[in-house]
């Protein structure tokens, strides 16, 4: 089972505490890097190899999706049980505690060093995670992650998905349904075309990344708490909805909003609808999802920003019997964010945070991956972001800024993963930029070109 965990770097933490709200969002989007996880305690619980649930971790097979849909509770292993009799409650807990570990070590080098810093950085570890992942009780299971981030030098609460699941029949067709608690919009999703579990499944948290990104594309990860419900009817129609509130792990409670760019006013509704069809060698999903957030930057009262994200996604997996059941996967998504920055534009003493109230942002990404058995997988991905230019929202700054206030970035990612064992991932990844924060050359006004951020990333991941 894979986890896409945006790692908040030290720079991100500083930004959260001290800087203007929109810059905070920008920094979060720069410093949140997806980290993918698969969890062996599920394998120990089910008695099945990783490859039953994953084409390559974290990409879910139809079996893996059903395992998640059913609340992570399927097991073939001994349990401590007691029958529900009269006024006595039942019991069904695993004999083995569902604990897992991931250890990531990495190396990152950009084409040109970031000014005044070392290029070619080893992180040992980049991150290490502990998981409580498996069956808690009848119909209740979890994916709970705590991660040590070497840049922050501390453990922090990470992606969490706790769910109750059950099944019934509606109109003569099976309905799997459940209630869930989670801290990251799309972490509950079943496919790898949505942000929490999307490509790239792992990445450097040292190299610079484009400043602009939609809020649902990792901007709320681990900073919100939500409760929701979902259902899969007739194995085809998937509906899910969650409402979120700001949580601000690490911040003072009750939340005063100070120092945080996003303080959800009321609740933020997240919605998801998808259609899937699975044949013997083909699996297709098309869907939509989105979120609406009203937020007051740095406070819990006052003028509000408003963000509405609409997204469409698809995933197609083709098993090729002629090639020993190798799998070819296609995934894509488009996110449209419309925002009104009525809160950010207000001058609170440090100047306004934006030049205009109305903004939009388009995010397009697609990738194709070939799985050579369970030993190798190669992926080619394209990505692009564009939207409303704003010289205050996207200010000029060395490396991370934009000389022309344009959020446009685009490029490609090539990834090759070798799995000598199903729980060891040795990966090499290359990220290339055609345009970075608005321009191809001298994009930051300090003489840095987009291609200077081209990145080679090596990863050794051990999962046990």
């Amino acid at each position: 089972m894979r986890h896409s965990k945006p790692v908040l770097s030290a720079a991100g933490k500083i930004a959260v505490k001290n800087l203007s709200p929109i810059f905070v969002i920008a920094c979060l989007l720069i410093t949140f890097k997806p980290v993918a996880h698969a969890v062996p305690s599920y394998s120990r619980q089910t008695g099945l190899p990783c490859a039953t649930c994953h084409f390559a971790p974290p990409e879910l097979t139809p079996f893996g999706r059903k395992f998640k849909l059913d609340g992570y509770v399927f097991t073939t292993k001994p349990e401590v049980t007691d029958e529900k009799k009269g006024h006595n409650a039942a019991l069904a807990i695993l004999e083995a505690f569902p604990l897992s570990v991931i250890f990531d070590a990495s190396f990152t080098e950009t084409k040109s060093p970031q000014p005044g810093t070392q290029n070619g950085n080893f992180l040992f570890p980049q991150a290490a995670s502990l998981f409580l992942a498996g069956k808690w009780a009848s119909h209740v299971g979890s994916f709970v992650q705590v991660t040590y981030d070497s840049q922050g030098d501390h453990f922090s609460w990470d992606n969490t998905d706790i769910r109750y699941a059950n099944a019934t029949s509606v109109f003569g067709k099976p309905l799997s349904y459940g209630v869930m608690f989670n801290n990251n919009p799309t972490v509950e999703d079943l496919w790898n075309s949505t942000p929490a579990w999307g490509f790239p499944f792992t990445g450097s948290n040292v190299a610079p990344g484009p400043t602009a990104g939609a809020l649902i594309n990792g901007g709320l990860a681990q900073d919100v708490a939500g409760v929701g419900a979902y259902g899969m009817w007739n194995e085809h129609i998937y509906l899910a909805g969650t409402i979120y509130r700001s949580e601000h792990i690490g911040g003072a409670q009750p939340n005063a909003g100070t120092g945080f760019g996003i303080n959800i006013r009321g609740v933020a509704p997240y919605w998801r609808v998808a259609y899937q069809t699975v044949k013997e060698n083909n699996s297709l999903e098309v869907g939509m999802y989105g979120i609406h957030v009203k937020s007051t930057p740095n406070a819990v009262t006052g003028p509000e920003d408003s963000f509405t994200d609409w997204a469409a996604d698809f995933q197609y997996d083709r098993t090729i019997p002629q090639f020993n059941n190798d799998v070819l996967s296609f995934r894509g998504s488009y996110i449209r964010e419309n925002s009104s920055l009525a809160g950010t534009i207000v001058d609170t003493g440090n100047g306004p945070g934006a030049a205009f109230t109305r903004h939009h942002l388009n995010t397009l990404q697609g990738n194709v991956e070939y799985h050579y058995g369970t030993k190798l997988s190669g992926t080619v991905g394209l990505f692009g972001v564009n939207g409303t230019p704003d010289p205050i929202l996207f200010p000029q700054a060395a490396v991370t800024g934009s000389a022309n206030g344009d959020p446009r970035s685009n490029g490609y990612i090539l990834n090759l993963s070798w799995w000598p064992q199903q729980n060891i991932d040795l990966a090499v990844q290359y990220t290339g930029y055609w345009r970075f924060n608005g321009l191809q050359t001298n994009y930051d006004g300090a003489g840095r070109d987009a291609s200077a951020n081209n990145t080679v990333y090596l990863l050794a991941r051990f999962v046990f």
Partner: protein
Amino acid sequence: MRLISRVVAASVSIGFLTLTLTGVVSAQNDAEKIYKTNCVLCHAPDGSGSSPSGKALKAEDLRSELIQKKTDAELAAAITNGKGKMPAFGKKLKPDQIAQLVAYIRALPKK
């Protein structure tokens, strides 16, 4: 006196029949519960293997002649030890539960 004997005999018979039927229904319910908990994920509620995960893993149709012509011992062994991509359930399910499951599988073609 004769009437009383008949009433008592009838009551005993009804009681015995009720207990017997309750036991049968209870066993069926137990078997169905075991099936739903452990087998539906791949083999689907009707045993056809037509669930998405069943299709992807090419799970057998439990109603098919191929499966139904196997002996009870063969079916029990497959459940206990696993077969192909199917995991072993021998450490989780007790022998009497596996026997109930075999009986439930036998009844699937008639449902």
